[in-house]
Structures are given as C-alpha cells and as structure tokens.
C-alpha cells in the first residue's frame, strides 16, 4: 500500500505541474490575476504531493519493503536506519525523485516569495518552472520509476546499498548539490520571463540576484562536500580528480559565478543585459547537461549510474529542447535589449568584464576537455581517448590566477573610471605579498618554487586589499558589500589551500608488516597491530598506527552482501596539516600495502568554499532586497492589475 501511495502522490504532483504550467502561462498571457494566484496554490500543492511521495517511498525503505524492486536493489535488512533512509537516493531512480522534490521546493518557494513581482512576470516565471517540473516528473514516471513492485520468488534480505555510499557524506552531498543545480532553474525562469515580457532592467536583476546567489551558495557547499567526502571516503587522499562528473557539477558553478557577477553589473549600471540573460540560460542548460552526463552512462566515472540508453535519450531530448527553445527565444528578443554604458581605463565594469571573460573561458576549456573524448568516440566510431588531470590543471590554473589578479583590484576600482594613482598603494602590498610568498616554499621544501610563490602572493594580495576595504568602510557596512568581500576572501583561502596541498603533500606507498616503523615526512609511523572487527554488514581488517601520541585506525572493509571492498582511511585532521593512513590489500607474508600521506593546508580548500558560500547567503539578506520588496508591494496594489 505504501509504495502505491508514493506512486499516486507522484502522479498527482505531475498533474499539478501540468496545471501550474498552464495556469501561469494563461494568467500572464490573458492578464487574468486569478490564474496567477491559482498557480501559486498549485505550486505549493505540487511540492506537498511530491514531499508525501518522497516520504512514503522512504518509509518503504525504513520498513524493508523488498516487494518494491528499487528498495530490494538498494537496501538491506542489516543496514542501520539512517543508511536505509539515505539508501533511497543511492541510485538513479531515487536520486531523481530527490531531484524533482528539490525542483518542486524551489518552485513553491518562488510562488510564495514573488508577491511583489508584476503579475505577468510572475505568471511566466511560474509557468516556466512548471514546465521544467513536467519534464522531470514525466522522465521519473516513464523511464525511471522507483515505485514499481516486483514480487520476489524467495525471501530476501535485500541486495544492499553501494558500500561507498554507506557514509555521512551521502546523507548531505546529493541534497546540497541538487539544491544548487536545480536552483539555477529559477534564474533560468526569470530570464525566460524577462525575454517574454521584454522587461530587463535593474528591478529584474534585483529580483534574480537573491535566488541566483542562494543557488550558487548551495552548489558551492554541494561541490565542497563532494570533494571532502571523496577525500575521506574514497580512501586515497585525493580531493579533486577532474572526473567528468565532477566537471559536470563544476561547469554550472563557473557559469553561475559569472552570472552573479554579471547580474551585479546589470543591477548597478544597467549594462551587460543581454549577456546576463544568456548566462542565466546557459547556466541551467549546463545543469541539465550535467544530469545527462551523469545519468546516461556515456562517460566513464566513479559517479556514473548504470547504463540505460532510453534514459540517456530522454535526458538528451530535455537538454536539446531547453537549449533550442530558450536560445531561439533569446535570438528573437535579445536584440531589443540595449544597454548604454561608458567606462574608461580600469574600472569595476572592466574588472567584471574580465571576470566574465575568464570564467567563461575556463568553462569552455573544461567543456572541451570533458566532452572531447565523447565526440572522438562518436566521430571515430568507438575509438577511445582520455586526458589526464595534469592537462586540466595546466589550462585551468593560469586562467584562475589571472582572475585572482583582477579580484585583488576590486576593492580599489570604482564604477566608470578609477584614477590610476589609487592603485599605487596596492602595488606596494603586492610587493610585500610576493616577499611573503617567497618564504612559503622555502619553509615547506627548502627550495624556491616560483609557481607557488605567485599563487600565494596573489591570494595574500586579495586578502589584504579586501581587509583594508572592510576596515575603511567599517561604519557603513552593508550585507551585500560584506558578502562580496567575504566571498572573495574565501576564494583566496581556497587558493592558498589548493596551492600548498598540491605543492607540498607527501605520499608514500609502502609494504609494511606489524611491528614495522617508517619515516614519512618528519614523522615516524609505527604499525602496531592488526585485528579483525565486525560491523553491522561488513567485516574489516583494522590496522593500528601510532604517530607520536596520535593513534590512527585505518580499515579495509569487506561488505558481505555485495562482496565489495572499501578503504576507510584514518585521518588526523588539522588546521594546517592532515595525517592520513590508508590500508590497501594484503601483499603476502603477512605484509600489507599501506599509503601514508601528509596533506598540509587541505582543510583550507573547503574552508574557503564554505566561507564563500556563507558570504553568498549573507548578501541575500541585504536590506536592499527587503526594502525593495516592501516598496513594490505597496506600489503594485492588486486593483491596478486586476483590470487588464
């Protein structure tokens, strides 16, 4: 009964989405306020229906209802309850249900918080969001239905959850990632509505900005969580692999980052209008491309779900439809958007232009590198190629450093034009930062390393110019100013973390037996003991390593149902240095393959990302947006609208 209820509510949500798309469109088109008001209620209802559907399916997981095929394939009676609950989004069907739930959540949020938008704009926005919901739910119900029953011929205990996913990271990483991904649909819907109504102005940008910022912040958290999770769960100390699916989430992030900056120019200076709209369309399209890459099985990746050509075709169709329709609309309407702007020399406009150019370029390079193997296979009928991570870094890092250089000048630059003399003090700061940067490689490795010095110097430069700026305007701090500065400093912190951990990590693969002592970096590791521990659904070899007064217990787990092995690295986290020991396979004579690593400043990589994400959210709460909302609510009274 419970899975049928879940299925039923999902179908209800689908019909609501169809109704939402129609009501919003008719209301906006025929100027019927009642339709638009109805759209709001429908959007909320749709979210509640999907929430019920989601909860009921999750109950089926908690109750071990193995007559549901999807539950039987992805859960097990021996799993602890919290993994049963999260096993639900451990595979394609359930994770797509989560995806649609998030989509419905954003739609409902927009419906609730768009009272003060002009009502035709509001109708179009809700209609576009409704259409996206329709496409997602249709895909869920027709090609990846998680509610189907399959009565088992014998009593089973379930075929278990993927062992790597039995972890806290899986509880939080996909939800945040989806919140971010799907959140860009709001920016997309605003852009389409703007093209349809022909109104793209500062007010429009001010409306889009909080939504875009929120989606961007959540995606940032999602990506950082994914990186942190890969670091400790995959077990070998890597935190970014340029894996195609990582790239699939990183490309919308780059586009989204460009978008929030370009929106700023559109709001403040009325410039970059058509480019901003194009970016909004592009960002969401890239999110869909990401979903296609992950869920169609066209790419080789740790994340890829099982291969199913039908799903791939459906998702490719959605991507193609969204891209074609929105781009043709853009082609017809964008010419009307005129922005008058003048600026000279180094100004904020120019820096933001550089920001957008560099981010787009980085995006293009990653797009090329990620998808070229696919094109190659297609062109040569099955030939396979791949490109190693070093080449991604070689192209990406210089672009990011140029971007970082521009970023350091932001606090000094003014709109329109900036007298060059203002930049002089910051050049002295750069000199100081460079001198400090020279010491960093000396401390870590005793040798000079110009690449590291340049990266560190630019990061310190960013930190100091922004701190000086915050200090200078301490009496008139606004949330959005503080948000902007903090986000930039977060970026600098990530740059420092990435630079040092990439440059000076120590890693050794060793063959060790109990009782062995090895020296890695400046520390001595003693392999003291090896024993067998039993988990709820696995058996593990647990080694005990002692470093100074720290005890590290890496495990190698054998999950019994699926007969898979995972490596649980033992990590001693530290603000400036992580120690990491992972236990590999037994290599004969009682010896084990062991990897011992030191990862300096690795925490800063995620710390910076979290600071930037918090900063993005901080800017959303700027009073400017709230004041605007009140003012417009007062201006746009209903009687004025109802007549049309």
């Amino acid at each position, binding site marked *: 009964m419970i899975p049928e209820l879940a299925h039923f509510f999902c179908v209800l949500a689908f019909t609501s989405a169809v109704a939402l798309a129609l009501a919003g469109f008719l209301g906006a088109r025929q100027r019927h306020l009642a339709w638009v008001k109805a759209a709001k209620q429908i959007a909320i209802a749709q979210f509640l229906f999907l929430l019920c559907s989601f909860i009921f399916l999750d109950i089926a997981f908690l109750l071990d209802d193995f007559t549901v095929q999807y539950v039987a394939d992805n859960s097990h009676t021996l799993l602890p309850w919290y993994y049963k609950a999260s096993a639900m989004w451990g595979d394609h069907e359930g994770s797509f249900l989560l995806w649609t739930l998030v989509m419905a959540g954003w739609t409902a949020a927009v419906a609730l918080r768009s009272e003060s938008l002009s009502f035709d704009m509001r109708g179009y926005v809700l209609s576009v969001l409704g259409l996206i919901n329709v496409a997602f739910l249709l895909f869920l119900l027709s090609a990846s239905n998680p509610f189907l029953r399959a009565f088992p011929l014998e009593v089973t205990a379930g075929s278990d959850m993927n062992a790597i996913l039995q972890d806290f990271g899986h509880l939080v990483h996909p939800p945040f990632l989806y919140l971010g991904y799907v959140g860009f649909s709001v920016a997309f819907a605003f852009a389409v509505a703007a093209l349809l109504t022909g109104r793209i102005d500062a007010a429009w940008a001010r409306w889009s900005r909080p939504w875009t910022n929120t989606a961007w912040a959540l995606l940032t958290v999602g990506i950082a969580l994914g990186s942190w999770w890969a670091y400790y769960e995959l077990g070998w100390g890597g935190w970014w692999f340029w894996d195609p699916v990582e790239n699939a989430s990183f490309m919308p992030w780059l586009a989204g980052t460009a978008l929030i900056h370009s929106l700023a120019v559109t709001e403040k200076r009325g410039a970059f209008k058509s480019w901003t709209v194009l970016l909004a369309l592009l960002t969401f399209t890239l999110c869909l491309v990401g979903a296609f890459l992950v869920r169609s099985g066209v790419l*080789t990746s740790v994340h890829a779900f099982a291969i199913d050509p039908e799903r791939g075709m459906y998702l490719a169709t959605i991507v193609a439809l969204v891209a074609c329709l929105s781009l043709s609309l853009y082609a017809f309407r964008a010419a009307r958007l005129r922005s008058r702007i003048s600026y*000279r020399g180094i100004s904020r406009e120019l820096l933001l*232009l550089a920001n957008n150019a560099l981010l787009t370029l980085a995006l293009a390079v990653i797009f090329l590198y990620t998808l070229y193997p696919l094109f190659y296979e297609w062109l040569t009928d099955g030939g396979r*190629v*791949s490109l190693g991570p070093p*080449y991604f870094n070689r192209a990406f890092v210089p672009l990011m450093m140029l971007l970082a250089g521009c970023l350091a000048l932001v606090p000094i630059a003014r709109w329109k034009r900036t007298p060059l003399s203002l930049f002089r003090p910051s050049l002295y700061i750069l000199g100081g930062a460079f001198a400090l940067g020279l010491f960093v490689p000396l401390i870590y490795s005793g040798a000079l390393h110009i690449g590291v010095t340049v990266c560190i110097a630019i990061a310190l430069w960013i930190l100091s110019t922004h701190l000086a700026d915050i200090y200078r305007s301490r009496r008139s701090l606004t949330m959005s100013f503080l948000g902007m500065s903090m986000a930039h400093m977060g970026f600098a912190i990530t740059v420092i973390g990435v630079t040092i951990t990439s440059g000076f990590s120590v890693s050794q693969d060793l*063959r060790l037996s109990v009782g062995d002592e090895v020296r890695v970096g400046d520390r001595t590791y003693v392999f003291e003991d090896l024993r067998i521990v039993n988990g709820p659904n696995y058996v593990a070899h647990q080694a005990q390593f002692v470093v100074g007064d720290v005890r590290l217990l890496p495990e190698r787990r054998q999950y019994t149902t699926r007969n898979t092995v*995972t490596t649980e690295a033992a990590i001693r986290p530290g603000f400036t240095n992580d120690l990491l020991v992972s236990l*590999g396979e037994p290599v*004969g004579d009682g010896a084990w393959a062991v990897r011992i690593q030191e990862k300096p400043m690795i925490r800063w990589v995620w710390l910076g990302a979290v600071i930037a994400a918090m900063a993005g959210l901080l800017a959303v709460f700027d009073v400017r947006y709230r004041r605007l909302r009140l003012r417009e609510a007062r201006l746009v009274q209903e009687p004025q609208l109802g007549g049309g």
Partner: protein
Amino acid sequence: MNRVRKRRLGVALFVFFGSSTTLGLAFYAMQQNLEFFYLPDRVVSGEAPTGKTIRAGGMVVEGSIDRSNEDLSVRFELSDMAGSSFPVVYEGLLPNLFVEGQGAIVSGTLDESGLFYADQVLAKHDENYMPPELAHLHTTE
C-alpha cells in the same frame, strides 16, 4: 566612429582574440596529450605506439598476479578473453576492486618487448558497473 565606440570595439576585439588564442592553445595542448585506448589484440599486434602514454585494458588473467616479496611491485596479465594478452608491471597500491577475472584499465607506456609499464591501474568501482571500454569483453565472456 566616436571614441566610446572605438574603445568598446577595442575591448571586444581584445576579448575575442584573447579567448580564441587561449582556446586554440588549449585545443592544441589537448591534441598533444590525449591518451589513446587500446584493447589487448592491438597491443599484441604492435599497433599500439611504444614510449608514449597510452591506456589499455582487459580482464586480469586468473593466476597471473605475481607480487614481489620486497616492495609493492606487481606483475599481471590483461587479456581480451579471445586469445590475446599482454604483461603489465606496476608499483604501488592497487584499486580495491582489482580482482583476478575482472576488468581493469592501465595507463602508462609500452616498451619494445611488449611489456606495459603502468603508472596507474583503474578497476571498476562496484560489482554492477563495467567500464564502457570493456563492456563488450564482458558480454563475450
């Protein structure tokens, strides 16, 4: 042309040429560094280039894994299950799901004698998943 337009044209041209140069260089660098993938029959027949970083893959031959007693070096054979196989040497940690009789992909260089020096060994990451490169080997097994 007035000054504003001239300046705007300058910026546009700069952005255009800058980005096309970057993309061109990125594309060129990619072309130089692509790792091509070869199945065992093409490694054995000598079609795969020597001394250049390539990828190759196949099933790990049962009983072929030979470990050193001193360090982490290991030697094994990859086969297409249709008569061709080639030896691989590697030093380091093997992936968790590297098992005899299962698929694996190696990245590294081939020497004149047909021995593959792997820098990296990749295995499938769960029991239901097969690297697309090896999917058809799996079905003919």
